[in-house]
């Protein structure tokens, strides 16, 4: 090797070998993960689910925290969720929540605020109204 023209650069010190080893490991891990994702059969549309929790604040006693989770295999854009207070099967009040993006396998959250006391309604219904392909 010593006679090779490139040998002056070819020999690496321990630091360089470490950086290379870590880099190679990282690259291999990322490639492996992406290959795994490409070859496993998954749903390729968004699959959104909304959950809600009562989360009052000092000025907004009827505030609810809404969590939107995308368990599907594609990202949804411009997600609109609706929270409705139902009484005697009619709509007492409706609140809307918009989320710009809901990436696959991720959760986003927001809050909706009612004017009426939800405890006076029969039920709360939180549902996803629409979303689009990014």
């Amino acid at each position, binding site marked *: 090797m010593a006679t090779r023209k490139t040998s002056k650069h*070819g020999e690496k*010190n321990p630091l360089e070998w470490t950086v290379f080893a870590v*880099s190679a490991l990282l*690259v291999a891990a990322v490639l492996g993960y992406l290959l795994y994702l490409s070859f496993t059969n998954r749903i390729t549309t968004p699959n959104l689910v909304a959950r809600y929790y009562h989360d009052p604040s000092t000025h907004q006693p009827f505030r609810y925290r809404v969590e939107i989770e995308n368990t599907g295999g594609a990202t949804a854009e411009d997600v609109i969720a609706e929270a409705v207070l139902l009484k005697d099967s009619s709509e007492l009040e409706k609140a809307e929540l918009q989320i710009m993006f809901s990436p696959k*396998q991720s959760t986003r959250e927001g809050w909706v605020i009612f004017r009426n006391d939800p405890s006076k309604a029969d039920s709360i219904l939180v549902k996803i109204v629409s979303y689009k392909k990014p």
Partner: protein
Amino acid sequence: MKTSSASLREYARGITGGLLFSLPLLYTMEVWWAGFSAQPYQLLFYIAATFGLLLGYNRYAGVHEGAHWNEVLIDSVEEIGIGLVISLLMLWTLGRIDLAAMGTEEIVSKIVVESMTVAIGVSVGTAQLGGEQEQNDGGLNPRPQRSVSLRGSAVLALCGGVLIAGNVAPTEEIPMIAMEISAIHLLVIAVQSVALGMVILFFSNFKGGAGKTSWTLVILETATAYIISLLVSVFMLWFFGRLDGVHFDSALSQVIVLGFPAMLGASAGRLLIK
């Protein structure tokens, strides 16, 4: 064998270059979105394309002139690795990575999309940001102006084009301009791109620019650079999902609009990063 402090200095240059060239992208939301909207196969393709570009750049213009392919390969892997780490740190600092709410796929994809430009920046930074002393370490003579083959200059044009066009390719502005532009303006952009490329390549006397040359060479080189710029535009627009379900006219107008910054990079970049 290089001393550890010399390698550390080299890495520092690389990191500076990586940040310098990719900072606009790290701060652009369309790029974060591209990360979670892209399908895994697109990301694999993106990594492969970047890796090819790095191999080419390191072979023809990298810090280790005349390097053996083994070394070029090692350098390229290192640059991608450094790119991944820098992107991870930057995105985390900017609050774009949230382990509790985001899935692994979202985080990994985001990092991958950002890290590819960082990797090219690292490569260019390592090779170009050093002083004369640094660049020559181990060499006997001051660095001579490299003569680059047509294939070499094509690779450099590709790198320059990606580096410059990459800053605007993911933004919403490209489809917006393309949608609103009139045919006349589009034609002007195309002519402007070619003229600018010609000026940069042959008349401005940039470092590495050709002196007196024949018209056939001027036309050949400018045309090569413009074709490369248009190809770079097509690839980047495809990756960022701008060509999906789009009519040919609208796709073409986007390609020409993005072709301008790409041409700027392909011609100037190729002279500056030699």
